[in-house]
């Protein structure tokens, strides 16, 4: 059991592109265990990414059961990649790494994600709605992006549109 400190902006680790996991070894299991313990004690929090505890690896855990009924439950996503996305919706987000601030962000409404599990097995998931938003927020952490990088205008629904390419990287349109 190890609850780790959550890094907050402007920690450099949060702005780095995280490295892919290649070894599904004991060190990875320890990282997953730490992430899980840290997520468990964060009130109302539905996801966590390894860079948030200072480990620049492509590992996230999502668990929207605290907030929502229908979903995949607790999920470990190692080296996750968004391979398809559809729709765009505005929603409000906050982040443990950015205390006392919430803001509106556009996210794809549906995403198909490929990822490895804790043992390295390739898996594919379809996410929609709230859970899709959580997964995109976490994958952003692996790209060195915070939701602050995607805030949309408070005044209007018009927004600086950043859309997903395969792999979750962004481009401006």
């Amino acid at each position: 059991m190890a609850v780790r400190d959550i890094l907050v902006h402007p920690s450099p680790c949060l702005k780095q592109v995280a490295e892919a996991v290649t070894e599904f070894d004991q060190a990875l299991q320890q990282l997953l265990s730490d992430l899980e313990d840290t997520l468990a004690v964060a009130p109302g929090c539905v996801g966590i990414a390894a860079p948030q505890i200072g480990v620049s690896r492509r590992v996230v855990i999502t668990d929207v059961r605290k907030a929502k009924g229908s979903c995949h439950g607790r999920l470990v996503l190692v080296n996750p990649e968004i391979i398809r996305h559809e729709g765009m919706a505005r929603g409000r987000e906050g982040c443990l790494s950015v205390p006392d601030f919430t803001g509106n962000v556009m996210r794809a409404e549906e995403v198909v994600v490929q990822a490895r599990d804790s043992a390295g097995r390739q898996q594919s998931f379809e996410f929609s709605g709230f859970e899709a938003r959580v997964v995109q927020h976490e994958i952003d952490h692996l790209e060195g992006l915070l939701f602050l990088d995607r805030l949309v205008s408070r005044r209007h629904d018009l927004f600086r549109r950043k859309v997903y390419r395969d792999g979750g990287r962004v481009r401006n349109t």
Partner: protein
Amino acid sequence: MAKKWYMLTMVGKDRSGIVSHVTAALYDGGCNLGEATMARLGGNFTIMLMVQFDGSRRALMSQIEPVVQSMDLHVHVDSINAELHHHLVPDVRISVYGADRAGIVAQVTTALTEAGLNILDLESDVAGTEQQPVYVMSIEGLASEGIASLQAALDIMSAEGIETSLSAIETMLA
């Protein structure tokens, strides 16, 4: 000693450079800025700005006096408690639009307040043309008596020709 904060309110005919000139003058005077809203409303530029400043209200006024003169602004300064780092997170968003006429805001917000709404943020625009203006308003707030109660209040508005839509804001923390 607690930091002294002021709320600086400014308004003037919109022109390029107001924000940069005002904030440069404040920075030169040793001020630190807090939260702000600044917007062009019609042809006017408006500023509501939290300013931390060790001196008196009078000293702050004189610090910005040159830019107030050169930019032809009206200014008002109040001493405030900052209360930073205690954001309230809205749980409901309401959009309202309709053919512009006097009384829409009063009517809608009175009904919503009675139904338990605490408004955190309100923005409105007059769209359309001079001949056919359309009033557009967006509100974010806290529904202290639940969303159903607000929806019931809005349903009455809809019967009177004001289009409204209400959606719950679910804030994702990750």
